[in-house]
């Protein structure tokens, strides 16, 4: 198995729906090694979210090749992409990560349910993950009864419970204050270091960037700077 979880070559993404085409990505070559935590940085509109979506199989590039865990996304149908997201990728979005009508533990179980994991195993794993992440006291609450920080941490629990190859998080801390951000980042560090989950975050938040081992700065749809913290 390759050591590269993500490898992109010559990615462009042009939004042509409007009169003036928008070049969100202009030829990005990007690789992520297994076990690495990479943070995408850059000004608003620089293409961070677009790149994350392309890697996650949520959006298709106009040109270029994306490989995730050795699988070329270009050749996959919509439902094959669905399955790839389901089985290989965990997502944490800025907000609305959870299903409002399900409790925290049911939300964590949800993806396993989509995968067809049996009820007993599902429950054990969901409870274990919540406990591991220090969330077992809120397992039976619904998202509406949780704070923003708690919701994001449950979202991380849901994203990692299936042991995905890759965890993608777009502005995970955007709605959080600095102390809850800290909690969330500790959580992500835990899953990254203890469980070897590869993470790519996209953020403006310097705290998030500090936690990542590698910072990739985008500007106008191209990579401007790529830097790894030494020794991390």
């Amino acid at each position, binding site marked *: 198995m390759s050591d590269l979880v993500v490898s992109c070559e010559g990615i462009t993404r042009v939004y042509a729906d409007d009169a003036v085409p928008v070049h969100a990505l202009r030829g990005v070559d990007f690789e992520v090694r297994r076990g690495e935590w990479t943070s995408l940085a850059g000004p608003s509109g620089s293409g961070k*979210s677009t790149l994350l*979506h392309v890697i*996650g199989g*949520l*959006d298709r590039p106009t040109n270029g090749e994306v490989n995730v865990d050795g699988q070329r996304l270009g050749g996959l149908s*919509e*439902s094959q992409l*669905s*399955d*790839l*997201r*389901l*089985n290989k*990728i965990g*997502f944490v*979005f800025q907000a*609305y*990560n959870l*299903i*409002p*009508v*399900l409790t925290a533990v049911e939300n964590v179980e*949800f*993806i396993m*349910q*989509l995968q*067809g994991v049996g009820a007993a195993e599902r429950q054990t794993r969901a409870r274990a993950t919540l406990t591991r992440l220090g969330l077992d006291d809120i397992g039976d609450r619904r998202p509406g009864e949780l704070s923003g920080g708690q919701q994001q941490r449950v979202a991380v629990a*849901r994203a990692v419970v299936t042991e995905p190859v890759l965890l993608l998080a*777009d502005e995970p801390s955007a709605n959080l204050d600095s102390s809850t951000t800290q909690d969330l980042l500790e959580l992500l560090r835990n899953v990254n270091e203890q469980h070897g989950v590869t993470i790519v975050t996209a953020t403006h938040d310097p705290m998030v960037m500090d936690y990542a081992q590698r910072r990739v700065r985008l500007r106008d749809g191209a990579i401007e700077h790529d830097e790894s913290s030494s020794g991390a």
Partner: protein
Amino acid sequence: MNPMLLFQLSWRNLWRRRRRNGLLLAAISFAVAGVVVLNSFIRGMQVQMTQTAVNNMNGHVKVLAPGYLDDPGIARSFDLAKDWRPDVLEGIEAEMVAGWASRVRVPAVVMSERETRGVQLVGIDPAAEAISFIGDMAVEGERLSGSEDGRLLVGRALAEQLETAAGRRIVLITQGADGRNREAGYRIAGLYDAEGEGLEKAFLFTGIANVQNLLDASVITELSVRLTEDRHGPNVLSRMIDALTGLDVLTWQDLEPTAAAMHEFVDVAIAMWFLIVMGALAFGLINTLVTAVMERTRELGMLRAVGMRPRAVVVQVVVESMLIMVLGIVIGLALGMLLYLPMASGIDMSAFAAATEEFGFSALMVPKLEAGDIWLVVSLAIVIGLLASVYPAWRSVKITPLEAMRR
């Protein structure tokens, strides 16, 4: 994907908008209950009309000599073996037949001391007439004792016109098979009440042997067969047509075409009425579902993003639609039953009796709830629930994960 999961999600989603879904549920329930109850009345009326037509000396199947309908009289008569019975025919089982009656029915003129009227003189075997209204009509005075009884049963309305009463004598004139008039005086055994004055003025009853003696002819002019269930009609009809060659074998529908047309119209009317009410509900359902899909755009997009297949999203919308519909049907049927059961034994309509008797209905309105009609409303509601979810489901698959994430 896991059907239990879809069901659970849909079920909980319903509870998210309690008021909105509650109102829709109430609308569906009331509509179903209303349809069921009103329909039972229409059905009851239809059954009553059929009964009246069958009771009206037609039976389900009636045998006449050819030409009798155009020119009724003893000249158009026939004869059957004394021990003839419909269930000796091949293909007709005893349990299909409720009874049968032979009659001699001829036009006659009746005279009292004061008045003269044209009537139909009907010779009957009273014991066989349980199959017609004659069997259970109210009689003031005495009933006929048997086929040999030489007295008359006169309708109350006719008796009033003739200014006569039970125990008095009246004179009848009618034409024999030879074309010559026969005249005889008879004593009135009793006065009968029938549903509708038309019957009371039209028919005079006496023992069948009495008429045969008067006319010097041991023949009959009609035979009515009553069945235990309407559905045996077509089979019995064709068997009797095969067996009784040279005679006219007719159904009550042939003899009472207006009632038959009404009967068929009721079937169509019920289906139309279901369709209109349930169709109107479909728009409420579509509206609710589309609103539910639109307000959940982010959530549905998120579900797609984490790997739920488009198909599963569609199924979820359909399941939600069906849940509302099925709940509405169940509550509606229960409500309908609650309304129907106290009325099931009949409602006294005698306040409107004058109007109803005019049309040959009885004063007791008995609603009838048929399993077939319940199935019709249930299946129609399910089909409409499915159809109503098509557009909302189509809207739901158009939601891409990206669209949801960008808001």
